């Protein structure tokens, strides 16, 4: 028995060799399938198209321990963000540490951990779980993850309090893989807000966070999702956020990427019911030698759906960013309206951006617009501000904030908006 994963030998990975905690019987068939898929796929390297822009060499450079710590007696530090009236849930290195059974929640919302879901809920989770044909690490997460929660919102109910999930990572004595899943099931006509904060507090070890958040949004329901990665320089993440929208459902989501050695997030949106709408907004701000990669894939599977996606990045120092935005319009998806825009600001000559909008359109009566730009700070604007007494550093900061302000305005939760405004103000003050 060992509890580590050697990516040099990934094809021979075997559950019997791993000392896992809490293996769940009802999940095992799916986990076996996912493991099989993981083993049969090539490991992520630059040679694999899906990982072309990511330096994944760290995978083979060390063995990764599988987290078995259950953090039972750990006192968790309070959050950087105060969200009053939120329903707070904390995971540490993937493990749920909040006691969900003793919470009294407003009627209409239920939050259940994987180890206490009913047969019916198990069935739902199994149905929602799909092997990923491109993302080997997502399959590894499916194979290994026993730490998950299911959030259910009842029909026609609007949940006032946002659910606030803190994904914290702590040093654990060695390089580690953490796994985690969050599933959301919204019944027709419901509305709710989820804030996910990735708060890595690791200073010595490198932690590979594998995470998946899955949203099933039924007819006329609205989901507001904020996903904030405020990461330490050692954090590595490979995660997937997938939303399936039924008829006239609405998804509003906001992503922020700050920090990380590597943060790779795959965002999949699937329009599966007529008239659904998805609004995706994202900001990525890598600095130093950090790398941030958002891969989005919006599938218009049926007719009359709309999507509006705007991502902007400011890349400082020697950092790199990737934005890959795909719009896929299926043959039957007539009258689709899809808009995608990506703008990038490079603050230095060493900063790197790979931006690639991709269109795959099989219907003829659609509206589709996409574009990407890469620019440097406008020297003339910096000079103009300087002639009014504002020093160079401050001028650059004002222009950088201006570049993302419009996107920040889409954060409707007031406390979150205030927090992000001061966070980014502070962050920009340190750029040069």
């Amino acid at each position, binding site marked *: 028995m060992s509890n580590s994963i050697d990516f040099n030998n990934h094809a021979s990975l075997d559950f019997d060799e791993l000392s896992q905690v809490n293996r769940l019987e009802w999940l095992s068939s799916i986990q076996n399938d996912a493991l099989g898929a993981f083993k049969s796929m090539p490991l992520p390297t630059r040679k694999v198209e899906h990982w072309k822009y990511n330096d994944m060499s760290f995978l083979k450079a060390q063995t990764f321990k599988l987290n078995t710590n259950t953090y039972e007696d750990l006192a968790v530090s309070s959050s950087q963000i105060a969200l009053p009236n939120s329903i707070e849930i904390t995971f540490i290195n993937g493990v749920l540490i909040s006691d969900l059974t003793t919470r009294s929640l407003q009627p209409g919302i239920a939050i259940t951990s994987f180890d206490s879901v009913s047969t019916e809920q198990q069935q739902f989770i199994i149905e929602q779980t799909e092997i990923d044909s491109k993302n080997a690490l997502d399959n590894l997460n499916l194979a290994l993850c026993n730490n998950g929660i299911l959030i259910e919102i009842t029909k026609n109910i609007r949940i006032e309090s946002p659910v606030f999930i803190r994904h914290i990572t702590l040093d654990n004595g060695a390089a580690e893989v953490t796994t985690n899943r969050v599933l959301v099931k919204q019944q027709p006509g419901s509305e709710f807000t989820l804030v996910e904060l990735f708060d890595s507090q690791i200073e010595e070890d490198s932690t590979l966070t594998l995470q998946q958040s899955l949203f099933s949004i039924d007819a006329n329901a609205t989901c507001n999702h904020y996903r904030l990665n405020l990461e330490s320089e050692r954090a590595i993440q490979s995660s997937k956020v997938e939303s399936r929208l039924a008829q006239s459902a609405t998804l509003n989501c906001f992503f922020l990427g700050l920090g990380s050695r590597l943060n790779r997030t795959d965002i999949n949106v699937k329009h599966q019911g007529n008239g659904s709408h998805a609004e995706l907004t994202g900001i990525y701000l890598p600095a130093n030698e950090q790398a941030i990669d958002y891969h989005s894939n919006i599938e218009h599977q049926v007719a009359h759906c709309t999507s509006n996606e705007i991502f902007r990045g400011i890349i400082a120092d020697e950092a790199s960013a990737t934005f890959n935005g795909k719009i896929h319009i299926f043959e039957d998806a007539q009258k689709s309206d899809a808009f995608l825009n990506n703008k990038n600001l490079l603050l230095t000559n060493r900063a790197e951006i790979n931006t690639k909008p991709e269109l795959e359109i099989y219907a003829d009566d659609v509206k589709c617009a996409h574009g990407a730009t890469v620019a440097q700070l406008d020297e003339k*604007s910096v*000079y103009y*501000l*300087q*002639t009014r*007494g*504002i020093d160079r550093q401050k001028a650059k900061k004002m*222009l950088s904030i201006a570049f993302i302000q419009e996107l920040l305005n889409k954060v409707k939760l007031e406390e979150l908006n205030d927090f992000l405004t001061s966070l980014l103000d502070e962050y920009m003050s340190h750029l040069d």
Partner: protein
Amino acid sequence: MLSIKNLHANVEDKNILKGLNLEVKPGEVHAIMGPNGSGKSTFGYVLSGREGYEVTEGEVKFDGQNILEMEADERAREGLFLAFQYPVEIPGVSNMEFLKASIDTTREYQGKEPYDAVTFMKLAREKCQQVNLDQNFLKRGVNEGFSGGEKKRNEIMQMIMLEPKLCILDETDSGLDIDALQVVADGVNACRDDNRAFIVVTHYQRLLDYIVPDYVHVLSDGKIVKSGGKELALELEEKGYSWIDKL
């Protein structure tokens, strides 16, 4: 206040200013006229400290200090103001935020009392009114979508707020309708006092009817080739620049 001796400057290795001399004393208004491409805007950029405008020879003293060593923002805080021929649009930075940052840092540097938020707002609104700009302009992005004339009035509004010692106005009159010209001239005249000096770059003698200069200079091919009183502007209007060339 401003003493320029034998100023030579290059832009992208092209020599534009070729030995310019000028003395400006407090309270004076100097007009600079000259053909297109003679180096008038370049002169303003060099004085204000724009990057890429390289001084190769000569000296510029502002209140006794060598300003050529200073960054543009420091020169501005020292009290040098350039109203742009083509003001820059900065979407995403509101006029108000911009003005506040500018005024705060300048007043702090100059050891003046900071304005509290209420006084600042009141003042900004008042000055907007003075140059005939609607208050809504304060909320818009800096010069974003402003008409040509609105941009020029915005420059004057900034000038009034910043209370500089030396104001360089680069063709602030071009593109202005007759009423706006009056507004701008009134704004400038209201600022005129014994301690403040102006360098007014213009192509039209008409502006000088409103802002009466003490001196008029003709800049040609990077040098001041003729100086005189306000009648020189009239003479130029009548005879054109070719008259100077023949002298």
